[in-house]
């Protein structure tokens, strides 16, 4: 299978979805990223990233039921696909392998 490129921000979004497990949707993802990474995240970027990730097949989505909140509008919940999960672990594996190759001296000095 062709490897699909995953951008840094997309990776963060994907990881956050994995962290949140059930109940991940636009707002919760945005706020979770802000909380965990201390960076301001723009909702529209998250929205775009979700759409792309879904197009790439890393996500599935499902419309939730209507509630009284948010003016009665439904949420679109997202969840990791198997493909999304393996993409994340691939990245992790590549990184650990590379880490292992860094000489100890450098690691200690922290450059």
């Amino acid at each position, binding site marked *: 299978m062709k490897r699909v490129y995953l951008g840094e921000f997309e990776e963060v979004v994907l990881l956050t979805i994995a962290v949140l497990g059930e109940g991940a949707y636009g707002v919760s993802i945005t706020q979770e990223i802000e909380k965990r990474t201390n960076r301001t995240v723009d909702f529209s*970027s998250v929205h775009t990233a979700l759409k792309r990730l879904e197009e790439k097949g890393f996500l599935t989505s499902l*419309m939730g039921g209507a509630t009284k909140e948010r003016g009665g509008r*439904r949420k679109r919940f997202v969840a990791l696909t198997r493909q999304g999960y393996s993409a994340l672990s691939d990245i992790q594996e590549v990184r650990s392998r590379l880490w292992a190759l860094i000489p100890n001296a450098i690691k200690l000095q922290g450059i």
Partner: protein
Amino acid sequence: MKNSPISTDNNNNNSSTPPKWGERLLEWYCPQGAIEEVQGDLAELYKYWADNYGIREANSRYLYSVLRLMRPFNSGAKINSFLKASHIDMFKNFLTITLRNMVRQPLHALLNLFCLTIGIASTLLIVMYLDFELNYDRIHTKAERIYRIETVRVNLKQKVLDLDWHSTPNNFGAFVKQDYPQVENYVRIFKFFTNEQVQFEHDGKTIVEKEVYAADPSVFDVFSFDLLSGNVKQALHGPNKIVLSQSLASRLFGKANPIGKLITSKLAHNLPDMKENYSFMVTGVYRDLPNNTHLPLEAIISSATDVGQKDYYFGTYNTFTYLLLPAGINPETLAPKLTKIYDRYLDPSREPVMTNAIHELLPLTAIHVEETGGLTYIYIFAGIGTLLLLIATISYVNLVTAQASKRALEIGIRKVLGSRRRQLIMQFLSESIFFSLLALFLALLLVVAFLHPLNNLLDLHLWLAQLWHPGLLISMLLIIIAIGLLGGSYPAFFLSSFEPISVMKGKLAKGAPLRRVLVAMEFAVVIFVLTCTGMIYDQLSYMRKKDLGFDKEQVIKLSLEGENELQRWDALKERLLQSPHIVSAGTADFLPGADNIGEGPISADGTPDRTPQFARRGVVDYDFFPTLNIPILKGRNFSKDHPADLSKSVLVNEAFLKKFNLKGSVGERIRYGDKGNPSALEIIGIVSDFHQSTLHSPIEAQVFILKPSSLNLVVKASKDLDAALAHVEKSWQELIPERALEYTFLDEQVQSGYKADLIRGRLFLAFSLLTLLISFLGLFGLASYVAKGRIKEVSVRRVLGAEKANILLLLSKDFLLLVVLAALPAFALARYMIGKWLQNFAFRTDMNYPLFGSVLLFTLLLTFLTTGYHALQAMKHNPAQILKSE
């Protein structure tokens, strides 16, 4: 969906809702499949922001997110296909139809575009020209407060002289500043030398420049010269300093730093017996002035350099004086007070002729317009611009309606399918606006492409950056849209009024008197402009052909400056005459046709009260009149056989005799100045009148005195001009090797006095060709429309046996009648306007009525050809084919 209660209360959990407009904006572009979740997510975030940061912050974050969600290129086609059906769709469809129509009928589309583009492009150029003309001298930041003192009347002891001198006495400015403390500053700009061109020398390199003036240090305070190097405070203080324009500095010094360098020059002072050799230190360089300034200074000499100033006194009007007034001072109340200065300071015993003068203050920004014929030309050009746009619009309307028959089916179908009339009107209006915007774009391209050649052809100095002016751009856009609306509204209302059934059957509405009025207007404009152009060219050729009273062909003019130099003319003259190619050579301190003859008061003993009157005073040598073939009518020319001629004799022209009303002629005595002057001059001959200046001005009274050599050397060449020139060059190099030879031909010099007229003539010619082209394109469209509308009638007539010629006439008759009707007001207006224009010339051609006739005939012929072409097209069809459907 959006039914939650609206509240700005932010402590309540459920009530913070995003602003309505934001949600609308989202709906407008957001894909339908995603709108709900996005709106929901954003509403939730909005509430969160509102709770944590307040409503204002929430609003701005919300707006930011909404805008960021607009990603036209990211969303791809998938989203577009979900676009809500809206007005955008309708306009997109209109655009598609417009483009399809353009592709299907490229010729018609091109004609439409051509009309509008040419109209807009020429209007743009006119706007640029007007902008250039009206913004003269605006480079100076204080321009609004700068005034030049004009002299409109000089009161002599016995006489009043009305004139329009731009100058004042040299000492005048200082008195004004001293007596009227409200005057903030003044500056004198003047020439204290007679050289027409100044030759500067540095390190063996010489250059020649015309625009050299002396000025006070305050020139940098009053005007806004951008001094690139040098010190504003000191640059012009003290004698023998000079400040150069950037271009002059680089001509003389190349890339080297000119500051502190010495340049030398020979200047012939206005007053006799003054020093001739000057050496200037360069103390500053300023950025070149733009072309639209009335004072194109290239080099400024410090005024202290002129040591003759104290001797000028009040009688020497050689100085341009500019005043800087504080804002709020009314120049019209100050100007009359200036006359008092003469009463206070003028010592009658020192000034024999003049008592005082009346001045006016001319705003700096008005000087150029005033000096080039006032606002009349500005109005004329603005009028022409408007006319061109009008004609282009009319033609456009006619072309569009002419093509209506092709669109009729489309309109019918649209109507049947339920298009409302309003939508059809919208369609044609948007089409028209699209066209006019496209035309604007093309017109801008045209302007960019043709600006340079046009500048060369018409001797203009327009530059593209002029268009880069927000006010201009916006008003241009508005005007273009207005044209689009105006041009589109007639076809829009006209076409949309069609009855679907009759339209689809091929019947078109007839009549439309409005269009006839429009066409008549076009004809009137065409006839008017053609007649004016014809008359302008008439006058131009009259001026070219008019006998000026002297030979201007085959005459070469050389000049030398400086008293000492003049002695070298003798040697040169002698040398020149050795060649068989040189017929004769003579010198004078003026040049006929060039308007550079000084004037002064003269009194004649033969007049009853011997009142001095102004007359031109020229200096000639023995050979000047024979060289230019100016006949001596009575008496004799100066002659070497009469040594007294050098001091006691004078020649006068016929106009002089008339002005002074002298009964006798040869033998009369005159005096320079008033009758008190002890040295009388005897008139020994009467010179035939010749034109001293351009034909704008009358021939003036002139006296001629004798001096063996003066400024200008005129050389009459034989037939072989090239050989004569070669000889002139050779002799010059042998005798005056250190100076570069500069020569002009007298006929060219004379012609240069008509440059402005020539340019205006060319402009008018260009405009008339454009109006002709555009309006006949419109007529072409209209004629085709009319011919198509009457095709059945034509067919019936042919079946019944009508002659081709009769049908031709039948279809053209209406238009020909319109031409004749339009001609009447057009001729009346042209006659009036040209009559006014001709008043500018003291010598003018008569109103050329045959020209009027030929313009009318020409227009009739063109109209007949245009309409006849379509009539012939209509007759090409087989009548049976046309009539079978009925």
